């Protein structure tokens, strides 16, 4: 009777030692793969944060130094509008006054000076 019992009675798991060894190896490899995957995920998260921080700092530095493209463009538009308005006012004044040419020259130069002013003055206008 005993001789007809299956041989795996001595091994409750039902696996041969080779199979057990292979399973252990697979388990180790799976764990290593999982560790590697989580390391890659952490690296990507760190990369994303680093990219965001670098971009934010770049934009911040650009804005703080008065070289922001949007604000500079807004500044140019504003100063151009101011300059043309003052030129229009001057020409109107020149039409009524006899010293027209002198007045126009002085206002044009003030308009140029405004155009070359720093965009920091416009920072408040953007908001």
């Amino acid at each position, binding site marked *: 009777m005993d001789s007809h019992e299956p041989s795996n009675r001595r091994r409750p798991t039902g696996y041969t030692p080779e199979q057990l060894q292979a399973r252990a190896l697979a388990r180790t490899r799976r764990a290593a793969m999982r560790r590697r995957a989580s390391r*890659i995920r952490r690296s990507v998260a760190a990369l*994303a944060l680093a*990219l*965001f921080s670098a971009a*934010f700092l770049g*934009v911040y530095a650009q804005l703080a130094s008065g070289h922001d493209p949007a604000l500079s463009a807004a500044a140019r538009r504003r100063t151009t509008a101011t300059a043309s308005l003052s030129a229009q006012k001057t020409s109107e004044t020149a039409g009524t006054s006899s010293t027209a040419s002198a007045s126009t020259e002085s206002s044009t130069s003030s308009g140029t000076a405004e155009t070359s002013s720093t965009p920091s003055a416009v920072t408040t206008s*953007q*908001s």
Partner: protein
Amino acid sequence: MTATHANILATAVGPHLFWMTSRAAGIAALLLSSLSVCLGLLMGGRLLKRRGPDLRVAHEALSLATLAALLVHGLTLLGDGYLHPSIGDVAVPFLSGYKTIWTSMGIVAFWALLLLGISYYARTRIGAQRWRRLHRFTALAWILGLAHALGEGTDAGQTWFLAMTALATVPAIGLLLARWLGSASNGVIASNPTARLE
């Protein structure tokens, strides 16, 4: 002196905080998505076949990071005091009055990336082959996003932005072209087997 400078800078930047955050998130999303497209195309090629599992994990993580950056990009715009966009303006194409075409391109690209990205987790239901065919449209969504960045991005005219974008996108575009041209020539060979012998 330094504290005074910091205070001045904080006062100057304060009103633009949401706008700056959105710009930074947009830049990060562009770089992360370009890297993800590169890895995705490399996974299909023979170049890095042995690193398959690692590439897949990195590709997935980069895609999720891109989606997170895109969410930050869109949601922080809601707090911008200059544009004052509504949720509809940043989520529905052709609703915003600000550079409508470019904005819509970005919105369509976001929804396409989101839907195609999360479809990965339903690929057993969709079917692997069908999902693979569907996943090819991700490249199209990425190109739409790139066009949005170049057409509407505040920094699009800046040399540093163009250089950075070229650095990130040229390899991806090259790999994409190689894939498309490769598929096209494979198609020719498949339809005309004698073409291989010529």
